[in-house]
Every structure is written in C-alpha cells, then in structure tokens.
C-alpha cells in the first residue's frame, strides 16, 4: 500500500531523489522549492524506503512520513460564533496539516443557543465525505454529552475534543475546549500530539481494512492519471485533486466534468468502470469512491 512521505533538503542534486522515487515505483506528488531548499511530497510502497533515506542523508536532507498525506479531515465547529471559532479549530487544523492532511473546517449553523449544533442528514453526509472528523467542542461537560449523542450516527472515524480533561467516551481528547489564544505552550502542543496519535490509531484500522480488500488501483495512481489526462496540474491552484483513503475529491464542477472524469483511462478500463462518481455536498466538487476488488467481482 502506498504511504506518503516528504523529502526536506537542498535543491542541489534533489533530482537524484526524484529519479530514485521514480525507479522505485513511487509517485512525486508535489515539489515546493523555497530558494535553496525544497520539499518533495511523494507516495511510495515500503520495500526500499531505507535506501531512499540513505540517499537523502547523503544529500544532507531528511525523509519524514506524513501519515495523513492521503486524507481529507473535517474539523467540525458547533457554530460560527467567536466562542467556537477560530481557536482551537485553526490550531487543530494547522497541526494536522503539518502531517500532510487536507483539512476542511465545517461550521454548523442551524438553530440558536445550544441547539445551534444540529447534525441533520446533509451535515452528516458532508462530514462522512471525509476520511475522519474532529469535533471541537467547548467547556461544558453536559453540553458535550448532548452533542456526543448527535455524532453517534456518523459512520466515518471521529474524535471529540473539549475542555474537560476527561469524559466517558473512548474517542475523547480533553484540555482543548474554548481558548482565547493560539495553542503554543508545551502542554498544549502535547495535547495536540495526543490527538494526532489517537487519530493515527483509528486511521490505521481503516487502512488495514482497506488493505484486505483494496481497489485495483491506488488513489495516488488515479490522481496522477486524472491530472495528466485532464491537464489540470498547476492550473487550478495547488491541489485540485485531493486524496482520500479509498477515493478522491476533484475540485471541478460536476455537471461539466462528470463525463470526462468517467472516461479517464486507467490501464485497459476507464475510471467510470472502477468507481462510483457522485456530486459532493460541498462546493460543487466531485467525489470519486474507488470500488474494492470484491465489489468489482474479483477474488
């Protein structure tokens, strides 16, 4: 299974890293040059990662795993008011982005008072489009208990964050809650690390489950084919195709691009043969959900 990594080093001889990735059957996702430094994000299947790391070390660079690099995560705020946004929703979002995640902040805004947080069908579907969700709540434990009942129906993996240090749920991280400023202190960063570790554990289970019945082509491979065949790389901002654990989100209008996306060639078949392609509930984007081997009728 492909995992996501980033090479951080100098621009001098960075082409050797790129050539090695290509030789090992990896895919270079993105290059971010910054004067004499460069970040190269890539996807690779494990067997010779150590060899690549040796080369990076020789070039005085480093290779880090970015465990959320192929995921889109929703950070859900109960409302758009100042006591729920921006802190710590932004801190959680920024922290996860350092590990490669594409994050979307979903602000709920139905009703008033405590009932402003209403997860109806459309909000549920919007959140379930993501690989994971982080619910960022406030300080009151009885409020958090109420909200936790609403989230039970969400099928995607989720974690609840709040102010009280402990709550009677397994997937809870305390000591976040409502904050007046950025999370900068050592203790606050440690809390964010704890959140990251819990998320990693949940995602690992999802990855194992996908690995037992994977789609015939990995999402990173489909992304490369889409970008080449639709000619969208570098034309629609940095990230027009967002990876999911078992699919992708394409930031193009559904009505105009649906047929073109269905016809994208993958091996001897088309993307339409390998996936379900639907309109997203978010911003007129397109969701591609790759079908597993058993769904396609294989062993």
């Amino acid at each position, binding site marked *: 299974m492909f995992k996501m990594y980033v090479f951080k080093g100098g621009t001098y001889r960075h082409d050797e890293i790129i*050539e090695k990735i290509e*030789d*090992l059957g990896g895919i270079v996702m993105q290059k971010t040059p910054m004067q004499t430094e460069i970040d190269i994000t890539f996807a690779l299947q494990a*067997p*010779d990662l150590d060899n690549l790391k040796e080369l990076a070390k020789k070039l005085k660079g480093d290779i880090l795993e970015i465990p959320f690099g192929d995921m889109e995560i929703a950070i859900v705020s109960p409302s758009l008011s100042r006591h729920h946004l921006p802190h710590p929703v932004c801190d959680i979002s920024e922290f996860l982005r350092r590990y490669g995640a594409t994050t979307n902040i979903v602000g709920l805004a139905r009703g008033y008072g405590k009932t402003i947080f209403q997860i109806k069908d459309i909000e549920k579907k919007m959140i379930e489009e993501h690989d994971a969700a982080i619910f960022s709540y406030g300080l009151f434990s009885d409020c958090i208990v109420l909200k936790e009942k609403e989230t039970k129906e969400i*099928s995607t993996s989720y974690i609840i964050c709040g102010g009280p240090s402990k709550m009677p749920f397994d997937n809870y991280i305390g000591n976040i809650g409502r904050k007046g400023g950025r999370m900068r202190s050592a203790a606050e960063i440690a809390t964010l690390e704890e959140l990251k570790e819990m998320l990693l554990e949940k995602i690992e289970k999802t990855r194992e489950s996908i690995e*037992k*019945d994977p789609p015939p082509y990995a999402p990173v491979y489909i992304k490369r084919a889409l970008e080449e065949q639709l000619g969208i790389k570098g034309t629609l901002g940095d990230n027009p195709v967002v990876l999911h654990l078992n699919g992708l989100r394409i930031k193009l209008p559904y009505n105009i691009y649906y047929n073109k996306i269905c016809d994208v060639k993958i091996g001897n078949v088309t993307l339409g043969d390998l996936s379900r392609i639907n309109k997203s509930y978010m911003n007129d984007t397109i969701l591609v959900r790759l079908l597993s081997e*058993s769904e396609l009728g294989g062993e």
Partner: protein
Amino acid sequence: MNIMLDSNPTKTDKNTIEKIIGYAPTPDMPIIIERKTTKDVTIKNTYDITTTKGILRIETYNNEYYQFFKNNIEKFEGLNIQWTDKNTVNFGTFPVNSDVTRKQFDYESYDVLFGLSGFDKSQGVIIFVKKGYIGNNGLEKGVFGKVVKGKHLLFEMESSDKIIKIEKRQVRSEIFDYKIVTSGNELVQENDHIITKVVVDLDENCPYTCEHFLFLTANGIFEITESLNTYCKNASLKGVTLPNEQTKLRSKGSLSVRISGKEEGCVYIYFNDSIEDKTHTVFGNVIKGLELLQQLKPKQKTKISSSIMRINTLGLTQLQAEKLVKKSGIEHIRVGNASDDAIIIRQDPELTLDAIKKNSIATEGVDPKNVFKVQLYEDVAPNTVRYFKIITGLKTRALGRLSVIFAHEEVDMILFTGDTKLGGDLIPENHPTNIVKAGDIGVTNMASRQKGTVGVRFNDNDEYGPTGEDFSHTNIVAHIENIGALSSIKDNDTIYLLLDG
C-alpha cells in the same frame, strides 16, 4: 537422482555442482540451488461464507464463540435470512446453549456474532453488522469475527437469501530456500533446482531499447551495479540517451531502461510489481532465473541470454559480417565497397530487431585505409574517454565516427564536432605539459568557451593543444597512429574510428 537444471528436469548420477554443470561457480559469478519446503499455510482462521448473493470472507478471533462456530459449521450451512434492518443482517435459526442477557453492547461495523431472535435460546442467529450500533442481541457480546471482503453484499441481502456453504481458507504454499553456491564442490540433493543463468524475452516493439540491451549483454554476462528489494540495476551504459518506446507496468520480472535523468541508459530488472513511469521504457521480461538475480549483490555477475542474437556488423569486414549474418538466418547484401576486407561503416536496417523483421540486412563497406584505429587513454582521462565514447558512438558500437568542422591544407590541425553541453562536465585531466604529440586527440575542457571541441595535430606542438587552446584548456583523450593518412580530409567529411586492441 532427479533434479531440475535451469527449469529442465534432469537425471544425473553426479553429486557435485561442478560435475553436473561442467564448471565451477565463483564468488564473482555464483549460481543458486533452490530447495522446496511445502507447508499448509492457514491464513489467520479465515472463512469464505458463500451466500446466494456472493462470498463473504470473514477473519475470526480466537475465543469461545469462534470455537462454537468452528464446531458447528454444518449446522449453519443452509440457514436463511431471518430479518435485515438498517444495522444488521441475521441468518438463522439454530439452538444455542448460553445464558440469555438483556445487556447492551457496542458493536462495530462488519462484526460477526451470535445472537438470539426474541431472546429465545432455540432461535439462535448469526448476525452480520452493517453499521455500528449499541444494542442487545440476547447473548453476551458474542463477536467471533469481522467481514473483510464482500462487505457491500450485506447491503444487498434480501429475505430470500441464504448461506450455501462455509469453507475455511487454506493455502498450500510452496516455500523455497535459496543457497548461493560459489564453488564447484557443493553437494546436490534429490529434487534440487540448480539455477545457473537468466533467460529473457525481448519485446519487438522496442527495437532501440532492445539493441541497447543486446549491446550490454553481447558477452553473455549481466553485472549487478545496485540491488534492492524492488529491482536490480546495471549502470555500465549510463549516459546513453534512448527514445521512449513503451511506457508499461513494470511487473515482476520486467526489463526496463531509464530514458531520462542522470541515470538514463541504466538497465533495471524488477522483482516486484511497480507502476509505469514515463522515465522508463519496458522492453522485455525475465522468463527464467529471476530467483538467481534476486540473490546477487553489487559487482556479482550472471550468465544472461535471449532468443535474439545481436546483428551488429559495424567495424567488421564484409567477410566477417557475412559469417555473422548467416548465423541469424537472414539475407545479407553487400553495398559500397563489397570486397572481403572492406570495413563496414553502415548497416541497413541499423537495429537487430528491424533486420530480423525485414529478414535482410545491407552492409556498406569502405576501404580499410579510411578507418582509423584509436587507442583511448582510459586510465588517465576516464571522464574525457566517457565523453569521447558518447559523442563518437563508441559507447554502444564497435565503430565510431567524427564529423570534420574544420580542415585546411595550410593548417596543422583538424577540428571535429563536439557537444558543448556535455563538454560542460569536462573537468581538466591529462592535459599536456611540455608538448603535444602528432596524432594525440585532444578535447577542449570546461575552462574554455569552446568546451567539447575535438581536434588532432599533424605535427608536434609545444605551444597549443590539438584544438588550438592552451595546454591547461585541453584534455588528451586518445591517439591515432597513422595521422598522415588524414591529410586529404576536408570540411564536412566523416572519419571512422575503431578501437585498437
């Protein structure tokens, strides 16, 4: 005893490697012995449950509920769907000998467990959870497995569906041990498979790339430069540019050549499936001996062959070419100077695969006195020799050529076309100190704007190099003996070079 030798069943009464294969392997060029051990490998207590809608594959946990499942499989075959709801699919019924409870438990999506219909112990059901929920099923949390394949079928189940068959997945897996053999004394056992060489199949859609490989393996040897889990590689022809003839999946056993970047020209053999990349042309695959390649380390070699014999006549005489072409069974036509000792400077088609397809090859000969022998200074000017071989074609051919850009009867030197871009890598080496000898071929190095230019003088000179540059701007790369024979050369002529020795 019965053994296998390079995938061929063989009977032998000999017992050592050297006696069986006729030579002794060495540490530089080892062989391997493959020995089979066969095991029944049960994959994690996995079961395939065939239903009328398709196969559900479940992985089980080692608990008392799994034991109950395992010991009563025949009772569960033939069970019908009792009911489905938004969270579960339930097959039953059968009697259960456990205590009834009304406790609630937290179930995860795709759990497989036992429950009761209506809290009745005679109405046991197997429950497949579609979507995680909290509820009670009449029994303790009897989860004994998880659906790993066929999850989508749970959402398609209807009341008419049933379980047809339940089978444990078992794979008879052949596991091999590989012994690397570096001497002839190694003893051979019954049923050993001795692998001594690699055999490949080449793709006729890639004539240029195949020619590159045939040149690399002209002596029947493949040397490992780098060996990883994903591939092994030979870098002897690094720097040779080839066109992109075929982008294809690099499946296990594929042969490919990198066609761009610093490592262009290197040949790779893949041990794992790797996705296709535009930087690699896939031009063939290994049909025998991949296991041998996987065991080799850098600097070790192996015998390698394909069904195609390289047909390259450049630098041969017409007579030598005739004998070579006869071996391949295709028609040979002599053009130009057709005498037996004429040296061949051109063949049409140029490439082996094209000649085989056409079933004919024409070889153009010239008078031997128009072909010049050169001695390359590989030891003292390795970088410049590498450059010289690329620009003359001597890197991949027995016959090289240089195009004249300047020659005049009143000027003591001849200048030839070089490559300014490649010449940028020419660090100063082997530059003359006091004198440049007649016949010394020099190349302008990176210290001068005219880097890459090649030249030769008819007479010794103690001031300037063969390209008219200062001594410090000149690398001496080779020597031509019969320099006088070049005196009639004019602008735009081509001279042909053969390696001396």
